[in-house]
């Protein structure tokens, strides 16, 4: 630490530039409504940041998205759901508690570039508390082709407008642009007699110094 201080002092005397570590901005958080995940993320997803939720089919990604929509719309926020593949089910969202009147659904019918453009326009318009970009059914190769510059652009736009930008996908794509990365995995389905009752999923936070894990049940 002593060497770092000496180096900083010598640089600051020789160059008239600001130096040091930028203090992390304090962002208010939007709770996910799922106790285990709120604990994992220290209170929910932060506004003005990009949060990634990645996992395979039937790992509870959409359940988290709809739970967040329910939380945000319950607080009177306007939300946007940019649906890259047209798989949004309004009935499921309503059953999760989302107020559909406050959710702008944009169906991009499989066109990823349209989804990115729409996300950018929506964030720039301002006034949306939560913007969800759903790439969960987009093929991995197509999602991986999205340049890092696009994610930077979206993250900066979200920062400027204090919008919580949430990205659902199969694998982590935004890498260093996202503030929080949550990886989900399917643990087991919950069968009860003749009924399919739900599923048990595990979550792991990737951007913490120590791996944090949680488990939650998504029920029908």
């Amino acid at each position: 630490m002593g060497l770092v201080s000496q180096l900083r002092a010598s640089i600051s005397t020789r160059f008239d530039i600001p130096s040091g570590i930028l203090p992390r901005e304090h962002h208010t958080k939007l709770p996910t409504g799922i106790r285990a995940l709120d604990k994992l993320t220290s209170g929910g997803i932060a506004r003005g940041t990009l949060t990634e939720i990645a996992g395979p089919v039937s790992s509870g990604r959409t359940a988290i998205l709809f739970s967040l929509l329910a939380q945000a719309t319950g607080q009177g926020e306007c939300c946007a759901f940019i649906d890259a593949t047209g798989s949004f089910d309004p009935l499921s969202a309503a059953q999760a508690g989302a107020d559909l009147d406050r959710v702008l659904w944009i169906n991009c019918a499989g066109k990823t570039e349209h989804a990115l453009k729409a996300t950018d326009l929506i964030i720039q318009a301002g006034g949306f508390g939560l913007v969800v970009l759903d790439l969960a059914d987009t093929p991995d190769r197509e999602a991986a082709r999205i340049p890092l510059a696009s994610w930077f652009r979206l993250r900066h736009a979200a920062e400027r407008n204090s919008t919580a930008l949430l990205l659902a996908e199969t694998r982590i794509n935004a890498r260093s642009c996202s503030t929080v990365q949550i990886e989900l995995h399917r643990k087991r389905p919950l069968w009860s007699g003749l009924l399919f009752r739900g599923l048990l999923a595990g979550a792991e936070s990737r951007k913490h110094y120590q791996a944090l894990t949680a488990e939650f049940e998504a029920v029908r």
Partner: protein
Amino acid sequence: MYACIHSPGNLPLLIECARGFSPYIEETSPDTVVFDVRGLESLHGPPPQLAREIERRVGLPANIAIAANPDAAIHAARGIRGITTIPKGREAEALAPLSLNLLGGSAETADLLDLWGIRSFGDFAKLPPLGVAARLGEEGLWLQRLARGEDHRQLRPLEDPLQFEESMDLDHPVELLEPLSFILARLLNEICRRLRARALSAGQIRLRLILENAPEHFTALEMPVPMLDEKAFLKMLQLDLSARPPAAPVLKVLLSAEPVKPRRTQQGLFVPATPEPEKLELTIARIKHFAGADKAGAAVLVDTNRPDSFVLRSFAPRPVSSQPKPSALFSAQQADPRLALRRYRPPRYAQVIVIHERPARITSPALSGSVVMAKGPWRTSGDWWQQEDWNRDEWDIEVAAGGLYRLFQELNSRRWFIEGSYD
């Protein structure tokens, strides 16, 4: 001074004629209009000359009366043929011979006056006011003032229908969108200026383009909230025209706006910010331009059991109350998240091998593999009285690869489909 024209069956003509003299016109009845002619002496001369000018402009047989108050003019025009001018202060004398039937009032009062033998305005005017008040009350006194030509009231002016339309004939047919945009901008500016002058906003913008050798092109932009932003309107029209260009060069442009009262909302200090309506509408128009007109909006569930039933309407979130609903938040916090369905639109066709009446293996471009668990069937059907009925057995399945899906069999066609995945 007020002038009255009485001519049965010619109301539009009477109003048109009255407009030539005054903006304050009252449509008293389908055959009578009365209007303010104060200050017209210097233009048309004394009242008899003014009355002759009115008669000349009407051009039809009509009774015309000019008096110091509207009711005296109305009664004189209804009861006296030709032209009548009543000098101020001599109304009672001029109206005295008129039949009491012209006076109006309730049927009981009219019957009572008839029983008393009162037949004319003059007879009624002579009665002592105190006695009239004692026997006929407030209405009697008012009728007597009318009969004497003493009642002074304000006109109830006819309001012009609010029309905000602009048009432009083009010397040369316009083929490109850019020059057309300049014309649209000019017309929009004029319409918005007129709306602003009347403190109104636009609820809908309609554009009609008369084309060369082609049917006319029509566009209506519906605003979810009242708006008055010419730049936003222009951009929306440009986006619409570029998505759906006219079929032929444009000969004439007609633009109109539907006037509505402007929105007045006071946002609370502690409620979340919402998108600015003008900006939001423009953003949605831009998104619809590349994604498709029916691809953006707020979903509204339809009251039916038919799967995947909803309608998409324009996104216009209602204002929130100052405090969020605590009960909704509490319940959402405490409950486990709801499992969601991710739909395939349309449902994907699949070939299914059934063993012991249960799906055992599934093959489709979206998903293939053996079924390790299947729960069902759950039978649903409906709308059997319509052409588009549904009748199916649903299964919840887990495939060997690990995904959980909803599978259904159309019972009419016996074909299998994957409806979506649980997530």
